[in-house]
């Protein structure tokens, strides 16, 4: 599938933002949220800011962005629509939470209650995003049980890393955030490796033979394509990344998204003197890693329509 940068930025940044907001809600629920207005303001701005930039970026690839509001109407059947609705609904607890946390006042006493609502909304929104892809049967690398846990884990991981960095910058006690971030990195890494392991081995259920129904006669090979140059289908659905590039990019993604941030967290714990730069750099590197991972998520996915163009889906093919 064509890796459109608007969609890569959208899924990555909204993941970061909802991850961050989700953790803040949990800290509030546990009564462990530090009441520090400046930290509160920056954390909320970063969280809501990433979510908002992500959502705006998702409208960039639309043919008619001015009609984007229409996408909220079909939540009964469409995961894209549900994602839109969930993301807008999430602004309500997020803004109440932010106001209560930054300004205090009457809302402050409610943080323990608004927090879990915010976390729940953030999780639901990330699940909806993941289901946009997970529900597409013609794309086997997306239509499997690994996709939703991967999106959730990567959101939780990037959010936790960012929160750990912010807490360090503002010198606020956020008990256990470094450990939570470390655990989230390990869980996300395991899930990503599991995704690759499983999708690399999945046997293709559709073939040029089943696509044309000519398998009873024999093996099907494209003799003549319908058109001489690439059309929309091949540009959008037929994107291919060379295997050796994909392998290199996977290594880069694993290093930047997981291993380097984890090493930085451990180093920060080992050498408290350098904890500040290490914990601040970790989420930034992870972000580059997750952008690479997300690029691969698109570029490596194959669509069954390419079977009509004589290609096969098996990763080996």
């Amino acid at each position, binding site marked *: 599938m064509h890796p459109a940068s608007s969609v890569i930025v959208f899924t990555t940044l909204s993941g970061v933002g909802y991850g961050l907001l989700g953790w803040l809600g949990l800290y509030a629920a546990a009564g462990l949220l530090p009441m520090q207005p400046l930290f509160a303001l920056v954390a909320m701005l970063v969280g809501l800011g990433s979510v908002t930039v992500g959502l705006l970026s998702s409208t960039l690839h639309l*043919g008619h962005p001015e009609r984007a509001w229409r996408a909220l109407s*079909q939540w009964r059947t*469409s995961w894209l629509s549900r994602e839109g609705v969930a993301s807008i609904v999430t602004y309500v607890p997020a803004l109440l939470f932010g106001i209560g946390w930054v300004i205090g006042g009457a809302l402050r006493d409610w943080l323990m209650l608004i927090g879990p609502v915010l976390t729940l909304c953030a999780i639901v929104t990330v699940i909806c995003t993941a289901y946009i892809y997970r529900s597409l049967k013609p794309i086997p690398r997306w239509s499997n049980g690994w996709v939703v846990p991967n999106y959730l884990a990567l959101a939780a991981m990037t959010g936790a890393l960012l929160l750990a960095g912010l807490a360090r910058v503002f010198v606020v006690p956020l008990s256990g955030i470094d450990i939570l971030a470390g655990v989230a990195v390990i869980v996300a890494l395991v899930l990503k490796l599991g995704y690759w392991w499983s999708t690399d081995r999945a046997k293709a259920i559709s073939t040029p033979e*089943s696509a044309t129904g000519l398998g009873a006669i*024999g093996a099907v*090979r494209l003799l003549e394509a*319908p058109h001489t140059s690439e059309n*929309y289908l091949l540009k959008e659905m037929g994107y291919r990344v060379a295997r050796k590039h994909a392998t290199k990019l996977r290594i880069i993604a694993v290093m930047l998204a997981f291993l380097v941030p984890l090493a930085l967290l451990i180093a920060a714990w080992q050498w408290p003197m350098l904890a500040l730069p290490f914990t601040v750099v970790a989420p930034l590197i992870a972000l580059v890693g997750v952008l690479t991972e997300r690029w691969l998520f698109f570029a490596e996915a194959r669509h069954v329509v390419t079977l009509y163009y004589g290609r096969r889906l098996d990763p080996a093919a």
Partner: protein
Amino acid sequence: MTSLPHTRGTARLGLVIDLDICVGCHACAVNCKEWNTGGVAAPLTDLKPYDADPDGVWFNRIHSYEVNGEDARTVHFPRSCLHCEEPACVTVCPTGASYKRAEDGIVLVNEDLCIGCKLCSWACPYGAREYDLDAGVMKKCTLCIDRIYNEHLDEAARVPACVATCPTSARHFGDLGDPDSKVSQLVREREGYDLMPEMGYKPTNKYLPPRPRQRDAASIGAPALEPLPQAGGLLGLIDRLLSG
């Protein structure tokens, strides 16, 4: 509304395509383009049509395959929207632009609602939806809805443009929801099948398989030819030299 219609008429309008007959002339694709670039989904934009790298919206694409095996052959294969009974292209649409008609099962796009998110084209296993970069909306086969119900046309012409033009009559149009219709009978007789049934989209359009190849020529009752006598002389020498 992207929910599939809850109450449905019995009609399932669609095409039956005979892979035994199709000669891969692309006439159906050309007439489809011709009609529809002036029809309800008009225009079917072409980008750089006179360049080395033309790209444009077509509703019908003709592939040619080589099928290997005992009964090897070339098969020409027209591919267009199958007007599925379980079209995820419709249910994924966030705006309600994509819909399936309750009365006849035709799947359409309302271009005034479409935001051009392209998700429906990702959801179609058959590559039946092509995005119009110029108009910013999704386009697809309408089963020539502006012909089949068009009372300004002669009754015989009220069939999709592809069916009307096929010089070999490899394409048939009719109601596949009616078990007694000609198309339904044809599907029964010739064991018409669904493309990629494993996807679960339940296509309405059916394909008729190529008939088994005839291995021996039929006897026509003519006597076998006599072998030619060997030519002698100079001509015979040249003949022997050349065929040696």
